[in-house]
């Protein structure tokens, strides 16, 4: 596969002059609020850092990328929006799915993963995962990650490793743009320190021979799942320098608990304590765990039980001594999960002891009942982000830019997250690969020539919301974005008219409100840039959802409720071309298609609402 395979449809989203004129008229009529913290930023301090490799994001991918680049003898700076090891997702380090050839069957993993992800998962990335994951498992054990309390995996194990390797950490810094040199090569990033409690915000300029984006995934920041501070920052910055972004039409969904929606240490304690390998394989209609579209489809077909206060994916509060509804069904379905579902004794024993439990003080938390539909807008792990077609982690078409983990659209998990434990280990594997290839790139190329004026321009753009005297608050824009994108009938149960309607609203917010955003302080400036990134991603998600005129995995179109392998056995990419969001198709190898000797229903056992009727009515050849 090469990027030449891509077919670009440039006409789909071009914004014409008439539209711009209409928006200007709307701008004049719209009310604006005053910025109580208006402040010219021309005198703001600036700190600069230079290194061979810049890593953006200090989670699982970033840690492995930084250590690998350092091992190759290069200087490394790691910049993080929070504090490395403290505010990120590293506690999930134990949730593993290493492939052990002595226990598992390689072909079976490939077959089941392809079937569960509806044949658009990248099989070569899965091969790489199967080759490397057991090594990561032992490496983590050696680092001490397994025998540590979850909260200390990041704060102690990862952080100390980075510090001991001599990696420069720049923290509590919101990165807003990538720097490109005169030839367009990515050669750094600009951002700012948002914590202005002790001293005013300052601009941070980081230059490097190559940049590795490890900025994670995103959601719309609703308090619904431990996605925490991730707001698609990597995808947004990569898109703005011309990278292709892939996988935006697929969306994950999770259940959570009403009282502690984002508290992963309590609500998702089981995931922190898992050791060894989990394998969830089998027919997609039987794959349970809340990781498929079944939950959203439930909301569509069954409605929400208001008496219990919960919807699909939810459960009423637990009654002591009584099994929760659906428990029996879930138990029965376990037989579909294939061999190796339970933690394998061998790997478990390797850990040298039972799983560690979080501190006792967690246990007094009242979780509340389970609710469904959390984490709206989060993509499928490893299947949304910067597109790389040659397995090097280098962004297609953009020099000097690499990506790993959830910032990389490796498509390893296709259209549905097919199991558990792919994410952390996948991030580690890709981080290491990106670190190695970025090091090779830096060694093989002369230093970039960066224009001072260009940096100044990016810095000025970054401060703009502080310098706007009146406009719209990021808080209001975020709430409007959440109300537009969160309901299940937009991103999960899709239909052209509804997608178009949401798109019109998101486009208006992007074109009219974003340039007029106000920020009263450093914190609000951070949220301003975050919502700008979330809006760009909302547009990508809506356009990708509109473009793929079929249903597959977590992408369900009411108006096209069928899988159409002839036209849509592909990945959908978005890329900025001449200021417009251009859609592209990246066709997949013929041999990745479902088995032609089997029937449609054997290949796609999950029956979609309206599917059979659509096939009959349209005489659709399946």
């Amino acid at each position, binding site marked *: 596969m090469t990027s030449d395979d891509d077919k670009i449809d440039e006409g789909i989203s071009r914004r014409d002059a008439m539209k711009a004129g209409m928006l200007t008229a709307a701008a004049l009529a719209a009310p604006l609020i005053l910025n109580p913290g208006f402040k010219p930023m021309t005198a703001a301090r600036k700190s600069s850092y230079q290194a061979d490799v810049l890593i953006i994001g200090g989670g699982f991918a970033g840690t492995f990328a930084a250590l690998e680049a350092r091992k190759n003898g290069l200087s490394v700076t790691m910049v993080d929006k929070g504090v490395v090891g403290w505010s*990120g997702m590293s506690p999930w380090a134990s949730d593993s799915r290493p492939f052990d050839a002595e226990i598992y069957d390689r072909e079976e993993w490939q077959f089941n993963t392809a079937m569960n992800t509806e044949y658009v998962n990248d099989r070569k990335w899965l091969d790489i995962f199967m080759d490397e994951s057991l090594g990561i498992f032992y490496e983590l054990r050696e680092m001490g990650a397994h025998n540590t309390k979850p909260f200390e995996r990041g*704060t102690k194990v990862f952080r100390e490793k980075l510090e001991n390797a001599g990696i420069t950490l720049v923290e509590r810094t919101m990165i807003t743009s990538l720097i490109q040199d005169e030839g367009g090569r990515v050669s750094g990033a600009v951002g700012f320190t948002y914590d202005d409690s002790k001293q005013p915000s300052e601009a941070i300029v980081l230059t490097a021979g190559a940049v590795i984006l490890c900025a994670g995934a995103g959601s719309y920041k609703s308090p619904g799942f431990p996605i*925490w501070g991730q707001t698609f920052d990597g995808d947004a910055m990569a898109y703005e320098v011309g990278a292709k972004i892939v996988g935006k039409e697929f969306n994950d969904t999770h259940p959570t608990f009403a009282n502690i929606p984002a508290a992963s240490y309590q609500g998702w304690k089981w995931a922190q304590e898992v050791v060894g390998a989990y394998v969830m394989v089998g027919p997609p209609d039987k794959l349970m765990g809340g990781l498929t579209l079944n939950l959203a489809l439930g909301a569509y077909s069954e409605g929400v039980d208001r008496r219990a206060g919960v919807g699909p994916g939810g459960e009423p509060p637990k009654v002591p001594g009584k099994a929760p509804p659906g428990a029996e069904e879930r138990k029965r379905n376990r037989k579909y999960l294939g061999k190796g579902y339970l933690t394998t004794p061998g790997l478990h024993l390797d850990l040298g002891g039972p799983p560690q439990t979080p501190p006792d003080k967690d246990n007094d938390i009242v979780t509340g009942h389970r609710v469904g539909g959390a984490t709206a807008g989060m993509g499928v792990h490893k299947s949304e982000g910067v597109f790389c077609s040659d397995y090097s982690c280098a962004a297609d078409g953009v020099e000097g830019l690499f990506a790993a983990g959830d910032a990389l659209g490796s498509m390893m998990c296709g259209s549905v997250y097919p199991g558990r434990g792919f994410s952390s280990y996948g991030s580690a594997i890709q981080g290491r690969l990106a670190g190695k290839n970025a090091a090779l790139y830096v060694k093989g190329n002369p230093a970039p020539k960066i224009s001072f004026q260009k940096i100044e321009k990016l810095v000025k753009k970054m401060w703009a919301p502080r310098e706007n005297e009146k406009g719209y608050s990021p808080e209001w824009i975020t709430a409007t974005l959440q109300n537009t994108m969160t309901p299940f009938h937009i991103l999960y149960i899709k239909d052209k008219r509804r997608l178009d309607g949401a798109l019109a609203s998101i486009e208006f917010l992007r074109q009219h409100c974003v340039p007029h955003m106000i920020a009263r302080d450093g*914190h609000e400036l951070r949220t301003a840039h975050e919502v700008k990134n979330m809006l760009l991603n909302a547009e990508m998600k809506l356009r990708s959802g509109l473009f793929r005129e079929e249903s597959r995995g977590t992408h369900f179109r009411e108006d096209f409720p069928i899988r159409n392998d002839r036209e849509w056995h592909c990945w959908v990419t978005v890329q900025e071309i001449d200021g417009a969001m251009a859609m592209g198709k990246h066709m997949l190898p013929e041999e990745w298609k479902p088995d032609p000797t089997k029937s449609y229903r054997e290949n796609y056992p999950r029956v979609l609402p309206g599917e059979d009727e659509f096939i009959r009515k349209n005489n659709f050849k399946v």
Partner: protein
Amino acid sequence: MPIEKIHGCIGCENCVKACPTDVIRMDPKSDQAYIAYQQDCQICHLCRLSCPVDAITLTPDRAMLPTTSWG
């Protein structure tokens, strides 16, 4: 109100480091942590877990933004 109060802070800054959404800041005068941006709390409990003296209280009640046409 997701994060409700910080009482008995010893100024270690752990909660500031752990918060993924910049809700908690250090007061430069008292050298104690305070709740600066409560509206952005996602109720993730990382602050409470990282506090060595159990000074942080969270409640499950969320403050909802008023619904307005602009703002």
